[in-house]
């Protein structure tokens, strides 16, 4: 998928890539292709990437109609060419969501997520000495649930996979990781409301509980977090 910028109409371009090793990652396929394009005097394909070890959430590619390609709980950088056969045609698109405008080719602007976090995805702490890790005992069950929610890498696959381009899985994971811990209590009444308000303002769609987000999430974030966000959101209305 090629496009100069968000105003450009965008179009598909086809490339043949020879000598692809099964051990190459999907992003390395793009590295090889781009090197060739540069040598031929053409423009390389712009795509987002950073850690290349499945933790940064940058490598947003919609591959053959699936976020991050065919493998379960995998980011694009962890997808390898052994997932495909010689001669396959692979269709790659950027994340498709109004709230993630295309910057160029496969690169989209995901700063809407940053603004949702800024609206409430934080806790207040005193400066000075770090608090002892065991100063506030937390039940193992809660700690595990919070940790599982905190595994969200903010990649946006949930939005890309959702037919409504809803950001509920992302927002609910960020609300849950704090709502489950006593450290999240001081801002509890405002956090869910402010983050949901920002989510709507950014133009993300509504949630209709179809679960595509959970199925495509590279970190296996559970949609039970969405139920928790709804509970947080409603109870915030009663605390005022």
């Amino acid at each position, binding site marked *: 998928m090629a496009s*100069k*910028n968000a105003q450009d109409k965008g179009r598909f371009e086809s490339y043949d890539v020879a000598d692809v090793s099964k051990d190459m990652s999907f992003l390395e396929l793009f*590295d090889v292709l781009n*090197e060739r*394009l*540069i*040598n031929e*005097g*053409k*423009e*390389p394909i*712009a795509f987002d990437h950073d850690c290349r070890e499945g933790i940064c959430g940058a490598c947003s590619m919609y591959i053959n109609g699936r976020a991050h390609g065919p493998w379960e709980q995998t980011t694009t950088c962890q997808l390898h060419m052994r997932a495909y056969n010689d001669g396959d045609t692979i269709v790659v698109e950027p994340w498709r969501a109004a709230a993630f405008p295309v*910057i*160029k080719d496969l*690169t989209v602007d995901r700063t809407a997520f940053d603004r949702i976090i800024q609206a409430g995805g934080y806790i207040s*702490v005193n*400066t*000075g*000495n*770090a608090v002892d890790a065991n100063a506030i005992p937390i039940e193992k069950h809660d700690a595990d649930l919070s940790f599982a929610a905190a595994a969200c890498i903010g990649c946006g696959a949930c939005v890309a996979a959702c037919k409504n381009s809803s950001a509920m899985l992302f927002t609910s994971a960020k609300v849950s990781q704090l709502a489950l811990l006593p450290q999240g209590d001081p801002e509890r009444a405002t956090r869910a409301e402010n983050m949901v308000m920002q989510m709507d303002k950014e133009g993300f769609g509504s949630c209709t509980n179809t679960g595509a987000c959970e199925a495509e999430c590279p970190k296996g974030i559970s949609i039970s977090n969405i139920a928790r966000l709804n509970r947080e959101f409603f109870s915030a209305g009663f605390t005022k």
Partner: protein
Amino acid sequence: MQGLADGYFVIPYTLGNYLADDIHTKAIPTDHAAFVEAENKVKETLNKLMNIKGKHSVDHFHKALGKIMWDKCGMARNAKGLEEAIKEIQALREEFWKDVRIPGEQNELNPELEKAGRVADFLELGELMCRDALQRNESCGGHFREEYQDAEGEAKRDDENFAFVAAWEYKGPSNFELHKEKLQFEIVHPTQRSYK
């Protein structure tokens, strides 16, 4: 690991308090002479990079530099290899500024231009790493100078002459001035590491 440990233990005692005051700092104006100078310098570099229009990609130079560093400035290094590496990096840097090809436009998202800026830095830093390794005539930690080992192949330290952090001042291409920041050990004294 060093970075992780330092960050975890040091930051809560230092940076948080510093930033706590800084939260009241308003947006800093950009008309200060130093800012204007820095901005013009960056623009100049970008124009220069875009106008080279050479034959080789940024990755070509990055990989060539990586090969030199891997072969001659790895954990085990020696004076001969480091001297060669310095010359090779200087030649590569010259070639980079004559022959790099950066496609696309300057004022749009241009990952090749971003990368070119970083690789230009690496071409200076790589040389400095070799110079630093070359002046440190001892073996110590991740710096194993092959000339400085004992009969059993263990690292031979020289704390009399090298108990300092090397802070290098950039004075122009291939011109770095060494400032020695002395290390003083009062309770625990450095010795050769032994797993025996």
